[in-house]
């Protein structure tokens, strides 16, 4: 804990130093203009009007000092410096930017109860400049359009005399979605939209649901353009979806790296429009040092009365190398699945039998076995979570998985595995943008195998039915899959993890967080052993333009340890991930 405290203090110190404003210094932005205090960064075009330009003809080589002064005054005022002063010294113009006006009040006139101004951050104390007004305008529009007001009219102004930003919002009528017309679907069946649309008729308009709908259409690769426009008609909003369908087949070849496999190669072929109900077929060849596999899958929407239900045959064959085992496996199965939206959440369910072949080359597990198992899963993500997925600041995500096999049906064991996980992101105080996010995740795994005991027959249990914890996805104070019960794996597990993240405070959107994990594992089914595995640490998250970079440093500790835990090291573990979230 002492080391942890030291790290925290160091971190806070870095934050303070990083956030300190730079000292003012005299700067020359061009030969004729000197900024005596403050800072003014001009873009290339602004510089042309202030300083002239060597490009072009003699007309614009220089500009009169009075013109420089005029434009500088405009730029400074737009940036929150209302009272700059100027002096001419020969052929030079000296500029004092003066004190920067900051916002002291944010108010709405007339009052707008649908806008909770206390939730809007990054306004009070910030420069009274055009950027702030744009930000407040965008926020107000987004809030209104997310609250049922499809056609609001928002005006914002900044008042220098009382340093306030005043919102003039005319939300119009609160609208319910009346209809959603689809233009440009070509030969696609209208029912195709049902599995993408987050919009429900008769419910209050929410622009986020429209955006989710278009984003899902894009993500599937079926459409190459999609947009939804809202038209207001009194208390109703009529939506028009305009799409254009793309070419159905896609061939791709790529190579890359991941947090798990280092270098890999992917070759894929996908047909996203097998029929007018947009049934799809995908094949992917993946090869890396740790894995090589070929997978073939399809989603066939062949049920005329249930347009969101699909039949999903699948086949996969491959080879895996892990620290504790090496397996060759093949799987073939078929699922019935469904994708739909309900209760402001996105649901995805599928289930069906899978015929498996597993050859455990090294490690604990059956050397060669075939079995039939059943697999089912149901996933739900709130629309809010889906909309703010890149932000990772709010919403919930839940998942239930089942996998089981019966000795009576092509298997030599009876085993069931139940996985449940739930993640909740809480934007504390619902600020916009968020200030503090408390992320929590809970996971429970239960493997019910009878009769398997610890040492004699564990090798009958396929590796899929054994729990190996440790790593970035659960107990971060322990190395990946390090908690492995001597290589046998566990049969029960319960986990709770938390992150307390600071958002939009540090520059470049770097988000520090404190983390803690708690987990208990059980060597027997439906039983949790006494040792409590904990992690404490801190990390940084950076939503870069390329994806999310996360790094963490956590110390694993075992409370109530026993002989079985002696093998596990309690040490500092560092993770760096790309694209991975909590």
């Amino acid at each position, binding site marked *: 804990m002492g080391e942890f405290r030291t790290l925290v203090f160091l971190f806070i110190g870095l934050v303070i130093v990083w956030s300190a404003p730079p000292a003012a210094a005299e700067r020359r932005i061009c030969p004729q203009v000197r900024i005596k205090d403050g800072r003014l960064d001009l873009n290339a*075009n602004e510089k042309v009007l202030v300083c002239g330009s060597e490009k072009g003809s003699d007309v*614009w080589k220089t500009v009169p000092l009075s013109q420089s002064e005029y434009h500088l005054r*405009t730029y400074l005022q737009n940036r929150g410096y209302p009272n700059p002063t100027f002096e001419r010294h020969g052929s030079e113009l000296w500029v004092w930017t003066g004190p920067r006006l900051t916002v002291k009040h944010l108010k709405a006139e007339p009052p707008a109860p649908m806008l909770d101004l206390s939730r809007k951050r990054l306004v009070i104390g910030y420069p009274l400049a*055009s950027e702030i007004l744009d930000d407040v305008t965008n926020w107000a529009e987004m809030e209104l359009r997310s609250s049922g007001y499809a056609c609001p009219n928002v005006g914002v102004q900044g008042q220098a005399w009382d340093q306030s930003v005043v919102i003039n919002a005319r939300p119009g009528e609160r609208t319910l979605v009346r209809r959603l017309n689809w233009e440009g679907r070509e030969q696609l069946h209208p029912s195709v939209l049902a599995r993408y649309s987050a919009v429900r008729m008769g419910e209050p308009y929410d622009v986020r649901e429209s955006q989710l709908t278009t984003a899902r259409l894009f993500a599937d690769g079926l459409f190459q353009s999609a947009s939804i426009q809202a038209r207001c008609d009194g208390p109703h909003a009529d939506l028009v979806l305009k799409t*254009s369908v793309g070419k159905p087949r*896609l061939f791709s070849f790529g190579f890359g790296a991941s947090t798990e496999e280092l270098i890999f190669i992917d070759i894929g072929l996908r047909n996203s429009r097998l029929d007018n109900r947009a049934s799809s077929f995908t094949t992917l060849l993946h090869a890396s040092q740790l894995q090589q596999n070929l997978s073939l899958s399809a989603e066939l929407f062949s049920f005329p009365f249930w347009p969101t239900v699909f039949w999903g045959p699948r086949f996969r064959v491959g080879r895996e190398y892990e620290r504790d085992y090496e397996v060759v496996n093949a799987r073939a199965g078929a699922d019935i699945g469904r994708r739909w939206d309900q209760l402001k959440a996105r649901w995805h369910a599928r289930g069906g039998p899978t015929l498996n072949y597993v050859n455990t080359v090294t490690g604990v597990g059956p050397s060669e076995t075939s079995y039939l198992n059943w697999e089912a899963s149901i996933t739900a993500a709130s629309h809010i979570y889906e909309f703010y997925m*890149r932000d990772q600041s709010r919403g919930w995500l839940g998942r239930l998985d089942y996998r089981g096999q019966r000795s009576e049906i092509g298997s030599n064991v009876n085993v069931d595995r139940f996985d449940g996980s739930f993640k909740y992101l809480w934007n504390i105080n619902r600020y916009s943008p968020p200030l503090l996010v408390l992320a929590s995740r809970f996971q429970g795994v239960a493997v019910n195998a009878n009769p398997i005991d610890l040492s004699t027959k564990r090798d009958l249990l396929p590796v899929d039915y054994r729990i190996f914890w440790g790593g970035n996805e659960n107990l971060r104070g322990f190395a990946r899959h390090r908690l492995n019960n001597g290589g046998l794996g566990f049969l029960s597990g319960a986990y709770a993890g938390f992150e307390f993240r600071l958002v939009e405070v540090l520059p470049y959107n770097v988000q520090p967080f404190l983390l803690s994990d708690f987990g208990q594992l059980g060597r027997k089914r439906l039983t949790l052993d006494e040792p409590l595995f904990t992690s404490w640490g801190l990390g940084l998250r950076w939503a870069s333009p*390329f994806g999310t970079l996360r790094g963490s440093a956590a110390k694993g500790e075992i409370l109530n340890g026993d002989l079985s835990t002696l093998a596990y090291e309690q040490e500092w573990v560092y993770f760096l991930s790309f694209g*991975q979230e909590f």
Partner: protein
Amino acid sequence: MNPRVLDWPAIFRFFGLLVVALLLAITGFFYWAATHPGSAWKTFVQPRIFSRDTQIKTASATFNVTKISWREWKVDWILTGLQIHRQSPALSVTANAKLTGTLRIWKPNTEFHITGAEFISETAPLIYESPPGESKPQSPFQMANEWRQTLLQLNRYVRIDMLNLSIHDLQLGSTAKGGQRSRWKISGQKPSAIDPLASIFVIEGLGADPATKVTSLIRMDQFGNGSPFLKTEIELSAKEWGTKSQIEVGATDAQITATVKGQIQYGKIKGGLDSQLVMTQAQMALKGKTDLENVPGPVPEIKGLDWDFQVPLSDNQWFGTQPGRVTAVGPLSLIFVKKDIRDVLETACKCKFPDRLNARVEGSLWPGNIMQRSEIEQPVANVKVNLDPIQNSMMQMSLNGQFTVINRGGKLHYWPVVEGQAKFLDFQIVKAVLEANHILVPSPFDVLNGTIEVSSKTAVTPNENGVITIPAEVKVNLSSPSQKIVMNSTIQALIPPGRKSVEVYANLNIDDFIIELPPVDPIHGLPKLVTDSRLLGKPAPIVDDDFKVRFIYDVRTSKPGAIRLLSKLARPAIPVSVDVDRTRAGDTRGIVKSEPFELSYMHRTLFVDGLRLILDDRETADFAVDGRLRMEQSQYKVNIIVSGTIRSPLIKLTSEPELGRSDIISVILYDRTSDQLVAADRETVGVFDSAVADRAIGLLGLWVFASTPIRSFHYNPATKVYTATVQLAEGTTASLGTDWEEAAQVEVRKRVTKRWVLTASWKPGTEERSQTGKLVLQWEKRF
């Protein structure tokens, strides 16, 4: 028979008796009058002087006549408590009077030598109203001469040694003026303390505005010999004006002369006057010299103005119908609005501006029509004013005027007509002057040179509705090696009654307007030229009392494309034609349109076949736009038909050969149809299409994106804000927009080359694999 012979002795006896009887009667009458003055006054004098309704009474009356010799009597006459009252015309006198003198008849001359006269009225106002009557028209000379004759007669027969006159409240009026009376306080003494031979009278107005005080010294002994017999000092003092003048009047049989010297003041205007009047029966001539200071307007000081006025006179007419001739010559000081601007001007033009300009006034004056009350229009004045022109290397300026005054129904109406011309010969000098006064002449106009001419001829006088109209013409002819401005405009400024606003009507005709646009790069966006209107420095003022200026204009190009905006991006230039009106109601209507031209950027060319901005009555200035643009890509020709408004243009896309909308956008952005694009670029096309469909991308954005390779494009339909990264030359990129969209996807793609794209993705955990993140460099083909 013998002729009758006249009995002359009898005749002589008869007439002699008659004469004796008459003499006895006359003597008896005079004796009776002397011994019974009251009865004689009442019987013979009063009825002849006063009307029957006049009541006269005295508290006591004493009339003593003492014979000095048979032709000389001493008279002592004392009236105490004299009261004279008459109802109409009103007459009321309450006074004490004394008269002591000697009446001498005949040798050497008949004279009433008053040795002492006193008239004191201090207990009650002395009221006199003149009866209505027809006054016989007279010329000024006749009127003056009549007074002169009266005084002459009086001076011949009456000599006053001592006089004491005091009327503390004299009220004079006229029944014709409806009972309005002026009130005066009069005192007179002879001899005066100043000159023992002169009488001094002091007349003060009571409650009058202007406050009036006239002090006059009269030397009756000099009356008639031409020397000044009357020296008067007049003081008039009102709220806004006043004068203190000294007048000397002299008279002979042939002429009346007067000199007037003094100070006058009107508001802040002060002046000195030194004039002479010579009036004969045939003519009145008035000339003098005047100095004025604090005169409002461009010439606040007039020193040494010599003027001359001569008007013929005719008997029995006030001034006659013949006009008088007025001339005036004098130097006017050349004063500048700002004191230091003279130095600035002289330094800029390397020349000297004169301190004074000579002004000449010539014209006709009808003084007789000034007070007329005829409904027929009568001329009063018609004069011309000419000012010496200013000419130097910087400017040529001349100013002339004409002033016409008429009398209609007793009211004076005037029409000043001012004609001015100014030609600025060197715009660079003008620019130097403007900049010295902190008036900005921005680039690219600061390198121009040439002439600006302003001319105006206007009647600066209200019309029947009280509106003053000031017209002007402006001609601009400026140029530089690559630029040219040739414009003509006619302007009318209308100032309504109340003078709290002005309407300016301008017709601007543009023959050539060729200027160079700043060499900006469209990638960095258009820089803001004015402060963000949403940022308010102070509360909006209440403008009711402010002076308002309203512009109503009409701007036209004389030929298509007369406006040419030069830019390296446009070949050969951006030609624009304008036909715009702003009406009196404040509506701006018209058309601004471009002629065909090309826009080239980043090796891509956009042909603008025509683009029109239709100005109509919109408060938001988001005007309608229509036009047609063309892009010729390697295999397709794309036509972009624009409609809608500036901020939300509606874009219709067609192509040859025919393509679908998404493919057209793909060709615009990437010069390839969508099937040839990688997934990332297809998505960009789709999102771009959404933004265009939402009318969130304006024309500039469309052109920029058409001209530059796009690396990424994000669009937020809620806020209609897009952000994009575009590829510039030299491998650099630039970002457009201000915020990253909160993408709802978990995959972020960046196109590296034509076919290769870098994808960062995160996959949630599956049955086989937990969630993973990966970075993939991927090649794609869609078919």
